């Protein structure tokens, strides 16, 4: 979570440490910022999930902003079936795609075709962005240079 006072980001286990000496101990519902000591109620689950979804950039298609054209550098699906699916759709390292929209579904364009994907498939596709250097471990062999 994020400290409301100083903006420091920390995890809950870190925040619990200074409370060890406090008599309220585990029963206390407040968490303490390890940076400035400010006490605040625990962040609700939905908020942290939302924050994770919108802030944590993990280099996948799912986190890309619409309108950006980029190149797929790796595919990391949850299982073999998913990998087959992505392969069959032509979503492979080296292919250039453009994200058209994120809601209600991820809509991407490659060449002259448009493909809709759900979040799970979109987050299995790692893409190159200008701010990030390409990951050195694409799925197969090379991340092709243009």
């Amino acid at each position: 979570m994020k400290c409301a006072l100083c903006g420091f980001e920390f995890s809950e286990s870190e925040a619990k440490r200074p409370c060890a000496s406090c008599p309220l101990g585990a029963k206390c519902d407040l968490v303490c910022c390890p940076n400035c000591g400010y006490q605040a109620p625990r962040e609700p689950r939905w908020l942290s999930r939302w924050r994770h979804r919108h802030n944590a950039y993990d280099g996948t298609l799912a986190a890309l902003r619409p309108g950006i054209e980029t190149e797929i550098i790796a595919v990391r699906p949850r299982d073999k079936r998913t990998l087959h699916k992505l392969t069959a759709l032509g979503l492979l390292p080296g292919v250039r795609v453009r994200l058209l929209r994120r809601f209600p579904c991820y809509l991407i364009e490659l060449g002259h075709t448009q493909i809709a994907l759900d979040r799970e498939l979109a987050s299995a596709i790692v893409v190159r962005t200008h701010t990030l250097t390409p990951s050195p471990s694409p799925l197969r062999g090379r991340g092709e240079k243009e």
Partner: protein
Amino acid sequence: MANCHGPGQTTTQETATSTIVLVGAPNVGKSLLFHRLTGTYVTVSNYPGTTVEITQGRLDLFPGSTLALLDTPGLRSLLPITEEEQITKDILVRDNVAVIVHVADAKDLERSLALTLQLMELGPPVVLVLNMIDEAQKAGLEIDRRALEEKLKIPVVLTSALENRGIAELREAIAQALQNAENPRRTRDFSLDEIVEAHRRTRAIASAVLRRTQARTLSLSERVSQLTVHPVMGGLLLVLVLWGLYEFVGVFGAQIAVGFLENTLFGEYINPWVTQLVQRLLPWAFLQDLLIGEYGVITLGLRYAIAIILPIVTTFFFAFALIEDSGYLPRLAMLIDRLFKVIGLSGRAVIPIVLGFGCDTMATLVTRTLETRREKLIATFLLALAIPCSAQLGVILGLLAGHSLAVGIWAGVIALNFLVIGYLTAKLLPGERSLFYIEIPPLRWPLLSNLLVKTYTRVHWYLKEILPFFLVASVAIWLGQITGIFGILVNALAVIVQTIGLPREAAVAFLFGFFRRDYGAAGLYDLHNAGALSGVSLVVAAVTLTLFVPCVAQFMITAKERGWKAAIAMAAFIFPYAFFVGWVVNLVLTTLGVRL
């Protein structure tokens, strides 16, 4: 499995039934091309996966040739994922395959060639067809056909099945390919690495033969396409589409056309004429009853089938063909995916669900295109429970016509049941969540001739399937009445029917519901005309009948597709549940003092 066919099988059989197989990704116009080549019609559509069954036709290339042409379900790579892709792959490795015709979207060369490269390794000669060349040219793409032929070393034909261009060249190319020597058959399965490698080679080839003559501009259809997938505009458009569907099927089909056929055609001409004729020819009362009695084969069976079911089904199938051919269905799937994830389905399931509003039996067959067994089960179950078919829908809407509040309550209760039961089923059923991906084809103007032929094929299929059933049901009811079994069943049902606040006579409608859903609803219609139902009990009856057990045909198909255990379990749940919901609705409406 299919790989165990050795090359040494009987050659006589091989030459006798030499087949040419059309393969390609979904939605590249295979079916229309098939139609152009053979002259036999098959379903042509924009929706990936509608060509579930394999269609076979005869291809007359030269006098005396006996060649079969097979149209196959969409295939993207020789590493099959779905059942349909597996079927296609099995066909491709059969011994009697003489030529493989790979149909690809000319606009999508970069991705399609990968499959060509894989097909070329199978053994039989391959012909590459770049279809929809008209669309590619409009998009400013130029393909160097000769360069591509040289690179691949196979014949390449540019066609536009829609505009009937390049078909003669394709015939010639197939005839030429038949003379070519076959490469040795491949028996090994493809590995993922090989597929990825094929895609890599594809990109190199495509960049060498493709030329972009103009910068990419957004065409009008692309602009409209953007609107259809916009969360807000798309939603509004969906409402508009549904409203249009209701006006066409619910008002025009179910009220105007049904009214004309039933009251004018049957009421004034056929029924009196047949009645007179039968009374003159057959003096025996019980035989008269069979033909023209209250539940007679002609007065009930034929009248229901022709006057009530036919117009509704025809208008629905026409509207569905329109939605299908314009390419709207995949967009709908995309819009609704998030909502459907809640009930354990993916956006893909809109196809069977929407089709269910036409005919649940047909829709149950189409659940085959869904990916996981879990998704298939949920979709089948929801079709059996909460999706009224067009015939039933038409009759129910006709029944509730004029009471907008009644229609609202009915639709609300059914929608709530769909979502709640879907959600609970998804929670209960084990299995992984299904992933959703779908290609969004360009929006196209449907061809009127295609729509008509498609509607005709489906209505033809439908009538062939149901007409005998209506007649058999009439005979069964007649037998039931004569022997008294019918009376006992009606009495048993009447007890249940009365507890949910309906008149005794409604039991007859429910008994009909066993035979066909719409049959039951139509029975209700007669009851309503006789003035036996009040506003509230009309809604209760409509809700109960909608949820009530699927018709026999749907039940049989459910058993065939999902197994007897699943089918019986579904029926066992739905039967008491429908009455329970009816009881609750009745209780709530009467307690609140709602007057309809």
